[in-house]
């Protein structure tokens, strides 16, 4: 079955082609089920490959399958090849599994939309590219997927392209991502100059010999790669596109901007774990950026009223957690959080989409409240997602977040504090959104209120599946109990070389204290519950408190509410100067110099022509005279020479 790994990305591609080329005559149902079915087929293949991997000895679970030699030129030989190992199969299963659920949800959510077929073909194209990204066996093919998901993200953010804000958001996402991609490309070029190949296995095997531990070159490569990751995974300083990306349809936000695409950076950093392990400086940078982003985005999330924006900032914050995990060397924990986050964040977004569906498109939480009775399924599933992300035992987020905090503390107290504060805020703003949306008095506008209805089963069933996964997803990685960390054990062959390098440098083997771990778990739980209680006090018990706090710290609140004016700062620092420079080039160089040269040539020719055309009198006798004069000149020359 492993031989058939190429089938995994092919199915969504076929779905894209069928819907994209022939979908005009299909009904909505056909289009939707072709879309969902193709991703489902990939998921089935992925699961069977996964089961086969489980039956193999842990050390041998890394198989490459070359399908086609794509670029074959001199030193540069790049095949279209796939790498099946624990890391890629986990990613493939998350992408295709969550992708399939979101496709099904989309059939209900997008019902009656004008571009239904366009939506599903883009979504399938996205899944295809994402699967290429995570299953490729070399950097270049990964880059193809990397750019492909960026394209689909752009297309789907701008899905409602008649809306200016949506098309602007698409452009912003694309441009910001390009900046990151630039770093990624440079990193790739460096890898090729050093190793002469793009193949992961060859590069990582040769890395300890070709690069010096902690050397400048490996630091530079990893930092450049990380620049790419900050773009795709919305980390400081390139995170600004993600909140705006919420202009797209909600399932798109769930699939691309929460569960899968934005985690590509985490995957890439984990994939290159060997090189990152060799560059302690880069690892520290990753951890600091991750921690800062987690903290920073969480503070913005607290102040937002748009339910999708809260979730968007929460996504940025959670991605920060994942990078912090990678930065402290706990790559498998980062991937663990990636997986649980994919479950609960997709769930939260889709539940928010269900709320939006019921509320005739309203997103402002100030106009919600008390929806619990009207939307029972949505309420329960959203609550499950919230419990998971806040890290309440025994939901999935508890295990993964606790593990991150544990490793962060082992590395450095500062990281733990950043993570813990961010976790309190996470819990707070998530329960704030729950209480504002589903509890308390209804603030729904009357004409919206009598339309309120629970979503159809096509939407609620996927929610329930994800709610179930958010509940049990964490049990693959139970801490403390020896041998119960199945998830990290499964991934350990992939990260073993990196781990060895890190531990070799650190000199002390991670002393594993059960008591410390239990205490930390208690603290994590306390943190989550603290956030819950504060949110409950402020939004249920005494709803006037938030207003008072805002008044008290109005300056601070304005700063945070306006997202620290980072967008405006970027506009001021980069966007405007580039626009001005472009305008200068347009007016001064393009119009004056280039156009001037072309028009100048034409003007010179025209001037000459206007003089010479006076010779054309149109009178036969003048022409005859010129013939005569010419003949006389020739004869005179012949006679006189």
């Amino acid at each position, binding site marked *: 079955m492993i031989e058939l790994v190429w089938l995994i990305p092919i199915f969504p591609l076929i779905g894209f082609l069928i819907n994209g080329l022939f979908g005009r005559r299909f009904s909505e149902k056909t289009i939707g089920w072709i879309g969902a079915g193709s991703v489902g087929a990939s998921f089935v293949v992925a699961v069977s490959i996964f089961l086969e991997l489980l039956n193999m000895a842990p050390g041998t679970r890394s198989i490459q399958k070359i399908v086609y030699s794509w670029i074959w030129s001199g030193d540069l030989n790049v095949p279209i090849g796939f790498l099946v190992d624990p890391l890629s199969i986990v990613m493939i299963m998350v992408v295709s599994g969550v992708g399939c659920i979101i496709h099904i949800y989309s059939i209900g959510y997008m019902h009656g939309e004008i571009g239904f077929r366009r939506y599903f073909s883009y979504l399938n194209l996205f899944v295809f590219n994402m699967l290429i990204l995570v299953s490729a066996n070399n950097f270049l093919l990964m880059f193809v997927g990397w750019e492909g998901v960026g394209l689909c993200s752009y297309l789907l953010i701008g899905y409602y392209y008649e809306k200016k804000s949506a098309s602007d958001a698409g452009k912003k996402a694309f441009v910001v991502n390009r900046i990151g991609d630039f770093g990624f490309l440079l990193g790739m070029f460096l890898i090729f100059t050093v190793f002469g190949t793009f193949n992961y296995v060859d590069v990582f095997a040769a890395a300890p010999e070709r690069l010096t531990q902690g050397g400048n070159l490996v630091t530079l490569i990893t930092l450049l790669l990380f620049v790419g990751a900050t773009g795709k995974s919305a980390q400081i300083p390139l995170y600004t596109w993600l909140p705006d990306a919420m202009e797209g349809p909600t399932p798109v936000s769930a699939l691309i901007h929460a569960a899968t695409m934005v985690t590509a950076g985490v995957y890439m950093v984990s994939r290159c774990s060997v090189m990152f392990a060799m560059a302690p400086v880069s690892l520290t940078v990753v951890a600091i950026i991750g921690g800062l982003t987690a903290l920073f985005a969480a503070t913005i999330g607290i102040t937002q009223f748009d339910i999708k924006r809260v979730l968007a900032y929460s996504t940025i914050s959670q991605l920060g957690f994942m990078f912090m995990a990678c930065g402290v060397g706990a790559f498998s924990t980062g991937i663990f959080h990636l997986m649980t986050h994919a479950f609960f964040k997709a769930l939260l977004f889709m539940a928010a989409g269900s709320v939006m569906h019921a509320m005739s498109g309203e997103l402002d939480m100030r106009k919600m409240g008390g929806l619990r009775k009207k939307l029972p399924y949505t309420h329960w599933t959203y609550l499950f997602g919230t419990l998971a992300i806040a890290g309440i035992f025994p939901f999935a987020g508890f295990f993964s977040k606790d593990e991150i905090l544990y490793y962060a503390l082992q590395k450095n107290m500062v990281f733990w504090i950043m993570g813990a504060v961010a976790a309190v805020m996470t819990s707070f703003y998530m329960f704030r959104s729950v209480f504002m949306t589903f509890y308390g008095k209804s603030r729904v506008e009357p004409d919206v209120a009598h339309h309120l209805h629970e979503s159809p089963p096509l939407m609620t069933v996927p929610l329930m599946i994800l709610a179930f996964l958010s509940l049990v997803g964490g049990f693959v990685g139970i801490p403390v109990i020896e041998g119960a960390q199945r998830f990290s054990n499964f991934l350990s062959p992939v990260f073993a070389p990196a781990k060895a390098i890190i531990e070799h440098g650190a000199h002390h083997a991670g002393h594993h204290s059960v008591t410390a771990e239990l205490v930390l778990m208690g603290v994590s739980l306390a943190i989550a519950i603290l956030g819950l209680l504060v949110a409950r006090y402020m939004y249920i018990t005494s709803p006037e408190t938030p207003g008072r706090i805002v008044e008290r710290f109005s300056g601070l609140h304005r700063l945070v509410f306006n997202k620290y004016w980072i967008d405006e700062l970027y506009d001021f620092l980069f966007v405007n100067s580039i626009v001005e420079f472009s305008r200068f080039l347009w007016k001064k160089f393009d119009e004056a110099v280039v156009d001037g040269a072309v028009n100048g040539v034409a003007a010179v020719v025209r001037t000459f022509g206007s003089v010479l*055309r*006076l010779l*054309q*009198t*149109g*009178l*036969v*006798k003048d022409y*005859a005279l010129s013939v*005569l004069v010419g003949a006389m000149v020739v004869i005179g020359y012949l006679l006189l020479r």
Partner: protein
Amino acid sequence: MVTLEHYLVLSALLFSLGMVGVMFRRNLIVILMSLELMLNAVNLSFVAFSRYLGSIEGQIFVLFVMVVAAAEVAVGLAIAVAVFRQRGTININDISLLKW
């Protein structure tokens, strides 16, 4: 004794006469006639040289020139007729269309 020079002088005179006609007359028909005169002047010198040099080639050229002249007259007169029908005049100064 009529020598070559006589023929050549006559030819030159005829040619000049034709040329003056082409240059200064305004009637298209007269201009065509003057052109014929120029061609025939050339024919005369061809024949004279042919006789003088004892070579047949000059006479062959004359035949060619006559053929071309006949064709030219046919086309030229047809144009003159067409121009007259179109514009009601064959005054050469009134049909200076191909000018700036």
